[in-house]
């Protein structure tokens, strides 16, 4: 190893010099890699944002264990199960309390533009709030009033006037399911792929809006367990105690994974972004291959000369890989920088929770290395064909 480093130190950095000599070609190559990286990072960013935007409510759920209909697919399509199963769950040792939560998509009229928009509405018991969400829990008294709702101030859409008016203490009214409702307060949550924004209210208000749903048909059951009990174990007991055809039982962690899993596999969304990222990868491979093979071709005579002088094939392959690695690193840096900027623009425009994480960045750095080495390996086949005997 030490010998290898010493060897490296005395070696002429041929790959670097070769790239650096043709500045414009070098710049094209770097921007090609950067472009590919941006494509990949944007796709992965959107994918992550989608998955993360699907779970902010799950993360704040005020429950250790949840129960819901076996037909449920995700938070916007929970279906219902009989409320008595919730009461029944109190029989299981370790379960401290139960609470019902109602959730569905709803069309409302944007009070500002009078246009119809789809939001996710949630009804819960104001005396035992469903979420660990200080901005909501401090305003539960407001939603105890009839037909009063809290509105998501970060919802996607034109709501600036609504927000200023509510903040100024004025009451804003609009219409849901032909019922007039008041916006009593605001909370910051933001849009997700499944909803432009959220509304929170008491279960009584919720049921008033949806007269066809009876109180005994619950969308999501929230269970808290007594201290000292393991949620996993209690969940296992609950699974065997409650009838399988009526409910599914999951710990909070499992429920979060369930929601992510839905968006990842049950919809084509995960696949679309993966295909997008793969396209970026392929574009990168092609660009780097083009650059490296042009470079190898234009130096074939020199390479043959080096072989005649006694350099091994491995040395020249090393030069090509050196170029590949330089391109990977130098392309990744602007690619990452520009992507962070684009993330910020996307975040401003859509309120999606899109952010660069170390894990995404390092994943893409590794992908970039693979991309460049793959192209390098393909380009080296020409190096092997450089025959020193042809030099004379």
């Amino acid at each position, binding site marked *: 190893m030490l010998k290898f480093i010493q060897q490296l130190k*005395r070696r*002429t950095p041929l790959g670097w*010099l070769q790239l650096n*000599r043709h500045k414009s070609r070098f710049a094209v190559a770097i921007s090609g890699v950067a472009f590919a990286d941006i494509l990949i990072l944007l796709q992965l960013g959107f994918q992550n944002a989608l998955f993360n935007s699907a779970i902010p409510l799950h993360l704040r759920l005020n429950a250790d264990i949840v129960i819901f209909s076996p037909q449920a697919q995700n938070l916007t399509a929970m279906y219902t199960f009989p409320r008595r199963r919730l009461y029944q769950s109190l029989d299981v040792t370790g379960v401290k309390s139960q609470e019902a939560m109602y959730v569905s998509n709803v069309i409302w009229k944007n009070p500002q533009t009078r246009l119809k928009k789809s939001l996710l509405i949630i009804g819960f018991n104001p005396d035992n709030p469903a979420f660990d969400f200080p901005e909501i829990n401090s305003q539960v008294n407001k939603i105890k009033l009839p037909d009063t709702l809290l509105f998501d101030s970060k919802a996607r859409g034109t709501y600036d006037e609504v927000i200023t008016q509510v903040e100024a203490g004025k009451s804003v009214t609009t219409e849901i399911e032909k019922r007039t409702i008041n916006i009593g307060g605001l909370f910051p949550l933001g849009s997700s792929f499944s909803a432009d924004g959220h509304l929170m209210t008491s279960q009584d208000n919720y049921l008033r809006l949806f007269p066809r749903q009876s109180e005994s048909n619950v969308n999501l059951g929230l269970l808290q367990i007594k201290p000292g009990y393991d949620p996993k174990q209690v969940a296992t007991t609950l699974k065997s105690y409650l009838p399988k055809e009526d409910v599914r039982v999951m710990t909070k962690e499992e429920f979060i994974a369930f929601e992510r899993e839905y968006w990842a596999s049950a919809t084509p969304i995960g696949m679309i972004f993966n295909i997008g990222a793969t396209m970026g990868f392929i574009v990168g491979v092609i660009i780097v291959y083009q650059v490296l093979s042009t470079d190898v071709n234009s130096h074939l005579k*020199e390479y043959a000369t*080096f072989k*005649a*002088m*006694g350099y091994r094939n491995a040395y020249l392959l090393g030069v090509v890989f050196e170029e590949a690695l330089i391109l990977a690193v130098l392309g990744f840096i602007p690619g990452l920088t520009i992507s962070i900027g684009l993330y910020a623009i996307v975040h401003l425009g859509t309120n999606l929770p899109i952010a660069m994480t170390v894990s995404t960045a390092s994943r893409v750095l590794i992908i970039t290395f693979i991309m460049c080495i793959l192209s390098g390996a393909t380009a080296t086949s020409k190096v092997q064909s450089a025959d020193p005997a042809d030099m004379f």
Partner: protein
Amino acid sequence: MEPVISITHLNHYFGKGQLRKQVLFDINLEINASEIIIMTGPSGSGKTTLLTLCGGLRSAQEGSLKVLGKELCGASAKELTIARRNHGYIFQAHNLHGSLTAMQNVKMGLELHSDISTLEMNKRSAEMLELVGLGNRVNYYPDDLSGGQKQRVAIARALVSQPKIVLADEPTAALDKKSGRDVVDLMQQLAKEQGCTILLVTHDNRILDIADSIVYMEDGKLVKAPDSLMVS
């Protein structure tokens, strides 16, 4: 003293099967240390083939070919690569690397020898360029040098590692009369100083006078040189 290159009953063929054609016929030749041998003859007579065989650029097929005491007939590609490190090569075209400066190009001739330190490599490369008269051009790229200057860098590259044998193929072909003369004079002078053997293939009658002996080749055989050649 043992000859530097010793060739006995060497035959060589190109092609395979029906197309197999013999290009060298029963070559016998001994070259001693510090000699300059010029190989000449009409095109297609096989002199370049013989040169590439001696240089280990092709593997010898039949007979015996000993270079610096090592048998190259039937040697593997890896053995040939190692053997080549003891040779210096000068080509018809300079074949300098366009992305390297004169200095870096010369250094490439030393980098193969892992026992030489970076400091030593830089010193020797600079000295070598000084010797070929390019001391003031060390950081020039080949594109910025004239044809003769490029060929002199190539000579510096071939000789910087002080090889025992230098193989040259038409080193003056791409040069005008004066540059060509300068180049061969330089080769002769450096060869004498370093005590290396030069095997040079050329059509250029003007430079025959630097040779210690001349080998004439025709149709793949070594023959006595025609008198006309000797007179010029």
